């Protein structure tokens, strides 16, 4: 399953940092710029606290396994509040770049805080069997390089669907309604498929990804504000264009 490609791919920590930005790693694993973990995601399945990821002792293979399979080095499944359901789509070079960046994180000895009110673990195994489809994003040779780049960014590190795709009763993403918007509390997210973006020109989208100001002058708040500030605004213009190109084709 694991490609163990990391040694073979040129690793770029700067690119990794950019990818970590849209992957939102800091949102859960850092507090005020310190990689101490601790952020709590409150869901109806429990409260999940991002662990300290600076002293994991991970090897490159452990790191890849965490992202692609959602498992710890000991083989223990992670709760999907850690969105490996999306990170599994990362391209090989993306994982390499992220690893290079990950290895530069300054160590921090803050202890992990436990999750609260989680379901019994056997339900997690069942959930994974039903809802988790591991596997990297496979480029579509029929589509342009730009489209494929956009698709990888959106489906992999960008993990856009984690908020913008509606979820079923057990909290799995409804793939047929991919990116069609979700009413989930506390952060409902709008439809960003082609149909949901008809009122947004390419310029509107590109500009929103930089300054968070929509076509009607509204300034984004909430989780998407973080996504813009730490993620999309730090991408290159080509990446932003690729994302727009891809979103325009999502039905």
């Amino acid at each position: 399953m694991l490609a163990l490609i990391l040694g073979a791919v040129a690793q770029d920590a700067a690119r990794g940092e950019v990818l970590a930005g849209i992957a939102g790693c800091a949102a859960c694993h850092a507090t005020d710029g310190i990689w101490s973990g601790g952020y709590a995601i409150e869901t109806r399945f429990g409260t999940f606290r991002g662990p300290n990821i600076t002293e994991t002792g991970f090897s490159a293979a452990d790191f890849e396994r965490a992202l692609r399979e959602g498992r710890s080095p000991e083989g223990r499944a992670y709760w999907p509040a850690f969105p490996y359901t999306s990170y599994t789509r990362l391209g090989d070079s993306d994982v390499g770049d992220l690893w290079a960046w990950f290895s530069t994180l300054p160590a921090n000895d803050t202890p992990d805080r436990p999750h609260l009110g989680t379901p019994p673990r056997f339900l997690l195994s069942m959930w994974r069997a039903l809802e988790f489809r591991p596997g990297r994003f496979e480029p579509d040779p029929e589509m342009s390089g730009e489209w494929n780049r956009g698709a990888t960014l959106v489906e992999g590190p960008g993990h856009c669907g984690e908020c913008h795709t509606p979820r079923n009763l057990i909290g799995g993403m409804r793939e047929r309604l991919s990116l069609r918007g979700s009413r989930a509390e506390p952060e409902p997210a709008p439809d960003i498929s082609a149909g949901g973006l008809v009122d947004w020109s390419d310029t509107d989208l590109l500009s929103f990804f930089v300054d968070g100001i929509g076509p009607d002058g509204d300034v984004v708040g909430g989780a998407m504000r973080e996504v813009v500030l730490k993620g999309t605004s730090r991408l290159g213009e080509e990446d932003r264009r690729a994302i727009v190109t891809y979103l325009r084709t999502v039905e």
Partner: protein
Amino acid sequence: MRRPAILLALCCFAFPAQSADATPDATVKYRHAVMKGMGDHLKALSMINKGEMPRPQDIAFHAAAIRDASSIAGELFPAGTGPDKIKTHAKPEVWTKPDEFKAAMEALRTQAGALVDLAKGTDTAAIAAQFGKVGEACGKCHDDFRVDD
């Protein structure tokens, strides 16, 4: 001698809103219009800032409009117009943390005011940076005090 009194009485009829309280519905609709207006001016600034619309001479006008609207907006969240009473995107924190809310509005007023001042000069880099701070002030307040959807 009677004339001033009559005039005064007429004025009361001419501006009834000043003596009666607005309904919560009207207040919410009005504050939405004021906030939307600020957004439109911000969008205009963003177009100028990106060079899509080469009208730097308008920056001071838009910035002043945002500055003044923020003062008005701060007064448009009376008790009884929160999400427990009426459909609004305003979070309960507007009413439970009034000092912080007031400070957030004041921050916008300050940043927009600074942009008005800068726009009188020619330091385009400083103007662009200050525009960013105005947007940040909007976003920060939305973050804490508004539900996005």
